[in-house]
């Protein structure tokens, strides 16, 4: 008869659906994260209403102006209103950020789980492919992509699809290796549960936590990566506003008008904060 110690509120093994929902509602972190991201999405949707001026309207005789009533956050190097561009940029960045990591997240986690669970041949093959992708110089790949599919946002999705899944694969593989050894997976396998069901019901819920936490960071990495990719022709094309390019354009003025790069930077940080709260909240909820 096993001693039911009071801390283990749950029976070991998979987490029931009802329980996830109850824990999700109670986790303060998750709630805070959702409110932050919710506010940002709201600001993005209301951009046309809130922003003082059209985001691309230039005023070449009032460039780099300080904070004022007309321009609450000042103007950039082309005299465009920084606040308006900040709000419109939220639309592009959240969309690009989330879409760019979807494929890497799913594909990487799948490969990582399979490699970690089945081991031997599958594992070696997968990990060597991962090594090739990691070792490949990202810039050469990006320039090649621009040539093949031309500039624009499509390039970002493909660049990240090709290069970013490796992180998920390696992280998930590491945790799968450990979970595979645990007692309840052995017990479930002994009870005759098929590999597929076992992977989905028992292995994945335990390994997904690390992947989710990384995914939330990854979205921020995508938004910031738009800067370097933009120089090489990939990603958001001017004049569309996006935080990454605003930070990049602000680089030259960091010592004179430091707010130009810092404000979009802080916008990325706040988004990152919201996402990381959600990431950790989800990880806690899903943990058995």
């Amino acid at each position, binding site marked *: *008869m096993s*001693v039911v110690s*009071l*801390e283990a509120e749950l029976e070991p093994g998979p987490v029931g659906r009802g329980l996830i929902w109850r824990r999700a509602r109670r986790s303060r972190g998750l709630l805070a994260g959702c409110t932050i991201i919710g506010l940002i999405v709201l600001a993005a949707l209301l951009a046309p209403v809130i922003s003082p001026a059209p985001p691309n309207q230039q005023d070449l005789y009032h460039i780099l102006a300080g904070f004022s009533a007309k321009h609450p956050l000042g103007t950039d190097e082309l005299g465009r209103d920084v606040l308006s561009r900040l709000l419109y940029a939220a639309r592009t960045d959240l969309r690009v950020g989330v879409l760019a990591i979807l494929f890497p997240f799913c594909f990487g986690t799948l490969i990582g789980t399979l490699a970690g669970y089945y081991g031997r041949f599958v594992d070696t093959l997968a990990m060597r492919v991962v090594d090739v992708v990691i070792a490949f110089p990202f810039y050469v790949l990006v320039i090649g992509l621009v040539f093949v599919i031309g500039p624009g946002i499509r390039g970002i999705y493909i660049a990240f699809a090709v290069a970013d899944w490796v992180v998920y694969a390696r992280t998930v593989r590491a945790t799968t290796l450990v979970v595979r050894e645990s007692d309840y997976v052995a017990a479930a396998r002994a009870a005759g549960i098929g590999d597929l069901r076992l992977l989905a019901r028992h292995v994945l819920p335990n390994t997904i936590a690390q992947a989710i936490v990384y995914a939330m960071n990854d979205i921020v990495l995508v938004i910031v990566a738009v800067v370097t990719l933009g120089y090489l022709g990939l990603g958001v094309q001017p004049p569309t506003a996006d935080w990454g390019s605003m930070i990049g354009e602000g680089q030259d003025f960091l010592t004179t008008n430091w707010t130009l790069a810092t404000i979009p930077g802080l916008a990325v940080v706040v988004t990152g904060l919201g996402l990381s709260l959600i990431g950790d909240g989800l990880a806690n909820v899903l943990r058995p």
Partner: protein
Amino acid sequence: MIARARRAQRLGSRAATGGGPALAVAGLSVSVLRSERRYVAVDEISFAVGAGSAFGLVGESGSGKSLTLRALISVLPPSARVESGEVLLHGRAVPHTGRAARRARRGEMAMIFQDSLSALDPVVSIGAQVAEAPRRLMRLSRRRAWDRALELLRLVGLPDPSSTAHAYPHQISGGMRQRIAIAIALSTEPSVLLCDEPTTALDVTVQAQILDLLDDLRRRLDLAIVFVSHDLAVIRQLCDQTAVMYAGRLVETGATTAALEQPLHPYTRGLLDAIVDLDDAVGAPAPIPGSLPDIERLPSGCTFHPRCFLATEECSTIVPELRAPTNLPETHRSACIHRDKMVRQ
């Protein structure tokens, strides 16, 4: 024996700080946080254990006995908290939480757990884990701490200490792991050893060896042992004093022989009847009806009354006190208003 000699020298220093039993618990209550609300899981527990003697704490799973032990050695999980009561070592009260609590218990109290695999650090060698306390807490040099560890491993009966010391927990058997857990506990030279069902996960033969080891250590090192279990046979073999716990409260306390031969509480009687008595071929085991109540919805009055064959009207209103039946010595008490009826049977 090296251990005895050192103990004598240490004993001298402790004796000076005041007499009284090695471990005394007065009115200990512990609450647990469950979905934003607190429930009392351990309610006003009091008992004492003298040096060299073994005290049994018996009860079904979920009765709060394991939580009690964790409260005594202040390793409660974040969701649990000591509400009231005192823990005294040699008559001196020790704080419940924080750095002071740990310092006060160092060299006084140690604990071993049920699942020996998960109780040991999987990535550190056994020798290192045993030598850690002597090295870190008693400032012994690396060499002398390692020797102390080998000595302890020999003390707990390991055939080849030096090779075991270099192995890792997942590489050795359950029984051997439990001996190592005991060695680790002894490495802090405690005077009180708390055991949270250390033998339950072991098969019978190994179980007996561990119990003999504990009994031998108790006498040789003058240890006060608190042994938590749901297995009355183990308690009878090891402990001279016993307390029975039900839903967070002590329902019967006394000498083991008295409590287990002439139980003064219906719950203890029920526990005894539930055991398959090998030599009594005729009597079939009669399990206690119903199941342990959840601490969130405890019955009123005497919490055992819904399952009690002696239950009467008042049982659901009066909260029984833990005391001896009329004109009997207070050495054997029961928390049941019909305790006198139990005497007659």
